[in-house]
């Protein structure tokens, strides 16, 4: 193709409108840091996350009077290095967020598109099931699901995926219904396309923008819910260095050793903040209606 007209590509335009939002860029930066830390956990961490140093129970962070450079952020009640546990925890949290979102996105979108295309009884059935899920507060329902399946990180992830499904189903169904009325869908149908092709090749790509935004924001919900389940003892089990589980274990020491509680909490806060800021920025950049 001869490039006679220098038209900025879609990506360039998108980046420009995204970069206008400083919070979003900050969120993106934080996300990149988290991902790098999680990926390089083996290199960055000073110790393994479960190694116990029997001489160093509840050592304070390095800047405190009794700090030790071996344990930059101190140790917990059984002498494990906080920093190493947090670094490995980042890997876990991102993994949880990614898996939960992936499962919920794939299943939710498929169900939502099915509801939109099939209509009638199928539509009513799927949407009423969604209503049933939405009736319960999400964490409560997640607890119920884990109680049925048994505690553990995998089951906690499954539970969080189930309670976040309704958002994806409703969003994809609503977007699909809008797109279904467009003429290009009719034209593709007139060309003889099968329903499956219409669903995933014609309609789905045009519904992706809101779904991507919802998935990004869903990342933080997933991490938060999984941490909450861990905190309640229903998610990852000790000694897994999951942030919520770390919080639960440290609860009884908060008066003596603030760092065992503060750092995992801070890690959760920053991760959730990063994904929320990034998600908001993404939505503003993708949705022309919100542009000023």
């Amino acid at each position, binding site marked *: *193709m001869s490039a006679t007209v220098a038209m900025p590509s*879609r990506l360039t335009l998108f980046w420009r409108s995204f970069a206008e939002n400083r919070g979003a860029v900050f969120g993106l930066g934080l996300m990149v840091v988290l991902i790098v830390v999680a990926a390089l956990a083996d290199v960055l961490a000073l110790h393994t996350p479960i190694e116990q140093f029997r001489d160093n129970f509840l050592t304070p962070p390095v800047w405190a009077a009794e700090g030790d450079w071996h344990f930059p952020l101190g140790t917990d009640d059984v002498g494990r290095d906080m920093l190493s546990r947090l670094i490995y925890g980042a890997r876990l949290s991102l993994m949880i967020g990614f898996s939960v979102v992936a499962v919920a996105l794939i299943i939710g979108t498929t169900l939502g598109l099915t509801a939109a295309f099939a209509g009638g009884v199928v539509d009513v059935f799927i949407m009423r099931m969604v209503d049933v899920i939405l009736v319960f507060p999400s964490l409560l329902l997640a607890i119920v699901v884990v109680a049925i399946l048994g505690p553990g990180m995998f089951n906690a992830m499954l539970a969080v995926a189930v309670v976040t499904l309704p958002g994806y189903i409703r969003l994809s169904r609503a977007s699909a219904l809008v797109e279904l009325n*467009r003429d290009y869908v*009719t*034209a593709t149908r007139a*060309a003889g396309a099968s329903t499956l092709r219409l669903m995933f090749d014609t309609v789905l790509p045009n519904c992706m923008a809101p779904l991507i935004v919802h998935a990004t924001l869903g990342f933080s919900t997933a991490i938060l819910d999984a941490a909450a389940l861990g905190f309640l003892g229903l998610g990852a089990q000790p000694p897994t260095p999951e942030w919520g589980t770390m919080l639960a274990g440290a609860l009884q020491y908060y008066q003596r050793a603030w760092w065992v509680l503060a750092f995992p909490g801070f890690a959760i806060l920053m991760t959730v903040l990063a994904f929320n800021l990034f998600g908001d920025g993404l939505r503003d950049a993708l949705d022309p209606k919100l542009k000023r």
Partner: protein
Amino acid sequence: MTVLMQAHDVVRHYKVGGGLFGTPGTVKAVDGVSFSLLAGKTLAVVGESGCGKSTLARVATLLEPPTAGELTIDGAATAGVDADTRRKLRLSVQMVFQNPYGSLNPRKTVGATLMEPLEINQRGDAAARAQAAREMMAQVGLRDDQWGRYPHMFSGGQRQRIAIARALMLNPRVVVADEPVSALDVSIQAQVLNLLMDLQERLGLAYLFISHDLSVVRHIADEVMVMYCGRPVEQAAKADLFAQPRHPYTRMLLAATPSVDPARRQLQVSIKGELPSPLNPPPGCAFASRCAHATARCTAERPDPRPLDGHMVACHHAESIG
């Protein structure tokens, strides 16, 4: 001359309302339409909004089955055939839509959009499909370097060219055009109309051309059918219809065409009132409530189309009015 599509007394009704407690009603969107489409000829369907033009288009493209009546494509019946045959029949009728901004998939490049129909029907290999799509681009006046562009990079007229090209990719015999130029600038309308006429001549296509713009119809049509409230009220060759309209509604439509020349403005017949609801049409002639010539017979008895001087007219008083 070959008849490519024939409709006999085609009816399309929709059930509406009902719900849990309501009484369901029937909307008679299309209520007894007959026509033949000849190769290389254009039948224009004219009428105001809500008269069933677009429903007729959807029935003609087999996107919706007719509730009653017969529709044959190239002599083959479309009702009571198995799904595979229907699919094949459907491919020989393609559609061009009104709004070129909504009729192209925003996520597909021009090339991908044009190749898609061939891909779906597994015609040729990838190279052959690309070749066919490039040839079609040239036919509708698109440049080769626009192959990789997305619809949002084109103007309305160019998009409509893409839409026409897509409709022709499967070599249809019949093209149903649902107000293909009404969303375009007047300066572009003529270009697109001329393109449609060139393609018709070259490929021997039959057009079912739906429009509410009489000047456009005058330009492109061979035969005109005027619809009112789901029924054809007058059908005649273009020249006859414009020279001597027989139905009072046709006369009103023609009189309502705006003119720049004050002397040529015909305001002696003005259109009063609204289209009656197709949910609950009046028992007699649907147009009676707005017609200056209406009598007791018009409100009691529905006029059926009957031949008169080469027109088909559905009016009890056609002779006395004309």
